[in-house]
């Protein structure tokens, strides 16, 4: 399946557009910062998610971290492999570690996200707000 541009939110959640819908997951930087992920709370297929509202959670070292949705949409698919192997996110978040596929409600929201090079600058600068 052809992949479009990778976009990432200030909350370290990425969107990778596909032919149909877009994969969302956490950035490589966030995966590294969280350490080994031991549990992923997935959304359910059919859930409506709203930009900036939590749509999933990941847990590492007794801390559960809610993930704000980078865009609004409807959940088309969830990555059930994460139920048995949550650390796929640590291994390769941009391919095997995706969390859900969303049908995007408003494509214009993608424009508000950073490109990967811009995101890398954003995290390197250490200033998140």
């Amino acid at each position: 399946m052809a992949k479009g541009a990778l976009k990432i939110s200030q909350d370290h959640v990425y969107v990778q557009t596909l032919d149909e819908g877009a994969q969302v997951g956490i950035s490589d930087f966030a995966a590294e910062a969280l350490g080994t992920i031991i549990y992923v709370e997935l959304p359910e297929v059919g859930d409506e998610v709203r930009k900036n509202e939590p749509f999933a959670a990941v847990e590492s070292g007794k801390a559960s971290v809610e993930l704000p949705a980078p865009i609004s949409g409807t959940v088309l698919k969830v990555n059930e492999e994460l139920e048995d192997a949550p650390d796929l996110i640590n291994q390769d978040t941009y391919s095997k570690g995706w969390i859900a596929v969303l049908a995007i409600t408003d494509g214009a929201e993608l424009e508000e996200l950073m490109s990967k090079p811009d995101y890398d600058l954003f995290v390197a600068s250490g200033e998140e707000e």
Partner: protein
Amino acid sequence: MITKGDGWIVNLGEARYLQVLDLQRNLVDLRQKDSVPDTLLLVEHEPVITLGRRASKANILSTSAVLASEGIQVHPVERGGDVTYHGPGQLVAYPIVHLTQRALSLRRFVDLLEDTITQVLAAFGIQAGRNPQHRGVWVSHRKVAALGVAIRRWVSFHGIALNVSPNMDHFCHINPCELRSEQVTSMAELLGKAPSMEEVVQNVVDRFVELFPGKWREVSPAKLSGKIKAEPMQNVAL
């Protein structure tokens, strides 16, 4: 205007679990908007069992009828970790801290919470530390403080619960975080007598303020309610 390093310390005394959960969620929301500074809540709850996001109900050992007869409620919550118990004689600290404003990684934050409790215990002559397999604060192979935090948009909530002198029999209702209940201890057990809760609270505040530097000041529960325009917390007899 909230400036970096400001903070409120609020000793709620004895307060209901769900009421304090609401307060925490409210504070997290306000903290994200910079409407309140970092806040440390200190509280003792009524007997209650809470389940973290990945909790297994199998780790609650008593039937719901037994729990009901003892007046112990069970609440699923959004923190990390498995099953835990709160009750009178256990001091719970809930830090509502903006991690990115303090440039804290999640791991560092959790370490600092554990260090706070380890240093408090040292002040009482108890040598405690980490366990490589499990979070929390340990005295050899027994857990004296349980940890489970949640992060919502880089603001922490939930926290760490130190067993000062709780009813240890209540831990038999659960497998606390996949451990057997006999692997849990309290300051009272370790010292041979219950320390004063007031003294423990003061030690937790002192150590916390050192490890999370800033201009912390004590705010009464009534003042806090006024500041965040919330219903005043009702003090309950536990």
